[in-house]
């Protein structure tokens, strides 16, 4: 708005009261914004406190120590938890991209008998709440010896109705000319999908990737059900953190250090790909 002020020879005077009002507004806004990230800053510094110092409310540790970090790294297998979480998040995200892409494309573009009935089933799936399928899914996975295995968790999460619906909505917005051109070139259905349509859906895939990766990384409910009774070797970061929190109760530096380990990877992705978080959520919701 006032960006061109530098090139203008005359800068109009602004009333002092207007400036004061503006300063007040931004101070207030910053104070509100602070409510949202101060707890994180507080957690970071507290994780570098000693135990006796951790019950004090001073922001700056006195003295600084990394003993909490050493403690949890030595006594909890966070290396394994991180490896497990990464493996599951990457595998499940890739499967969701491929399967939601294939299914979404078919429902958006291909004509086949029963398409509408099948799509109604997809919408029905969106409405089945997790706590309703909890018991039957647990019983089925137990019967098939898939409880306490990665396979079991991947099997039930490899495609979600939300993702398929999201990809379908995106494919509907792509003009048909591209496919017709591909068809004229003699490309088959799979090749048209793989070489032409999937690359065109890259913005949707980016949003799906980030939200699904975040969703799997942060998931607590299903890993608790599927791995909770099994060996800690299968634990994800969130399960490891819950275990740490229950065992260490009020050893604040330790449990906050654990929390930061659980948050950091998503934080890094958020900083670099913020707009995909936002576009993904709002398009999935509002257009859906």
């Amino acid at each position: 708005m006032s960006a061109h002020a530098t090139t203008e020879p005359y800068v109009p005077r602004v009333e002092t009261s207007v400036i004061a009002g503006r300063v007040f507004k931004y101070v207030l806004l910053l104070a509100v914004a602070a409510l949202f990230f101060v707890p994180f800053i507080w957690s970071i510094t507290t994780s570098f406190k000693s135990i006796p110092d951790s019950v004090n409310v001073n922001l700056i540790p006195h003295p600084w120590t990394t003993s909490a970090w050493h403690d949890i790294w030595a006594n909890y297998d966070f290396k394994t938890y991180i490896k497990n979480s990464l493996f599951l998040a990457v595998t499940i995200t890739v499967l969701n991209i491929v399967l939601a892409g294939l299914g979404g494309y078919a429902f958006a573009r291909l004509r086949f008998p029963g398409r509408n009935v099948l799509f109604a089933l997809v919408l029905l799936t969106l409405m089945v709440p997790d706590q309703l399928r909890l018991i039957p899914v647990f019983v089925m996975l137990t019967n098939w010896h898939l409880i306490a295995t990665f396979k079991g968790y991947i099997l039930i999460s490899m495609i979600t109705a939300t993702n398929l619906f999201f990809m379908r909505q995106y494919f509907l917005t792509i003009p048909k000319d591209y496919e017709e051109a591909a068809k004229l070139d003699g490309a088959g259905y799979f090749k048209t999908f793989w070489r032409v349509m999937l690359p065109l859906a890259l913005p949707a895939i980016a949003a799906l990737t980030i939200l699904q990766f975040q969703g799997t990384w942060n998931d607590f409910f299903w890993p608790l059900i599927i791995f909770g009774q099994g060996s800690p070797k299968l634990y994800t970061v969130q399960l490891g953190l819950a275990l740490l929190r229950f065992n260490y109760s009020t050893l604040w530096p330790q449990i906050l250090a654990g929390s930061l380990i659980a948050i950091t990877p998503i934080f890094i992705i958020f900083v670099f790909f913020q707009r995909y978080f936002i576009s993904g959520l709002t398009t999935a919701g509002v257009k859906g």
Partner: protein
Amino acid sequence: MAAAGDTIGVRTPRRSLLGGRTRESLWGYAFVLVPMAVFGLFFIYPFGYAVYISFYKWGILGKDPTDHTASLHNYSVLLHDPIFHTAIKNTLEYTAGVVPLEMALGLSMALIVNAAIRGKAFFRAAFYFPSIASSVAITTIAIYLLNSDGLLNHLIGSHTPWFSTASSAIWAIVGLNAWTTSGTVMLFYLAALQSIPTDVYEAAAIDNTSAWRTFWKITFPLLRPAHFFVLVIFGIGALKIFDQAYIVSGGSGGPNYATTTAVLYIYREAFASFDFGIAAAAGIVLAAIIFTLTTVQWATIGRTRNL
């Protein structure tokens, strides 16, 4: 359409023994095969299976071999179980508390970020930030801030351990989740605000309407589809509250069942009492509650031509 490729010099489209339509159908089925198998096996079939399990005595080893006849026994147990009543009450109280709070905060934040201010991207990111953290991590941080010697008590001069006091525990979770999810609500309101055409505001500006009046008379009613969307989506989410209740109580739902939410009750019936029949029945009751409330919302405020 396929004939269009038969011009000279252009590669002929593939021909097959099957007609074009049949080929398209087969590819269609192939593309949706795996997703539909997963949905059928792990979403739609379990819906019926849950109903079946809820009619029997069912333990960790499966159906009780002595129980041959389907009955409503599990439902009658639920009907008379004071802990289940508490769980439903806690869940409804939590939902009634958190959803309006999320909507008010989310809408306020959306209005701030949508206003002509500098650093929009910064404020939007700051408000959204708590939404990205995992429920376990954010709950752990909240427990630290709200413990008896924590920051909040230091500021207000009290020593209440908010999450482990029976009278405040569920409200502390309301506060926690209002803080972490209103950023997401903000994004939905922001998208809706940006879709309101500017000419309605221009008309208001000509009439010299105050900003306050403009908001209540124009913006707020025009946001009706967004209110409905947020109410339904976040209402359903609230009724399924589990992670935070599990983490603050160590999985027990205490103190004195104050954090026993409906889903935590289901979890404990299944994995602490190993009574899958009761757990399945409770899941069906909760699903029925969710379905009823959503239908009521749809029938009362959702029926506009915008939806």
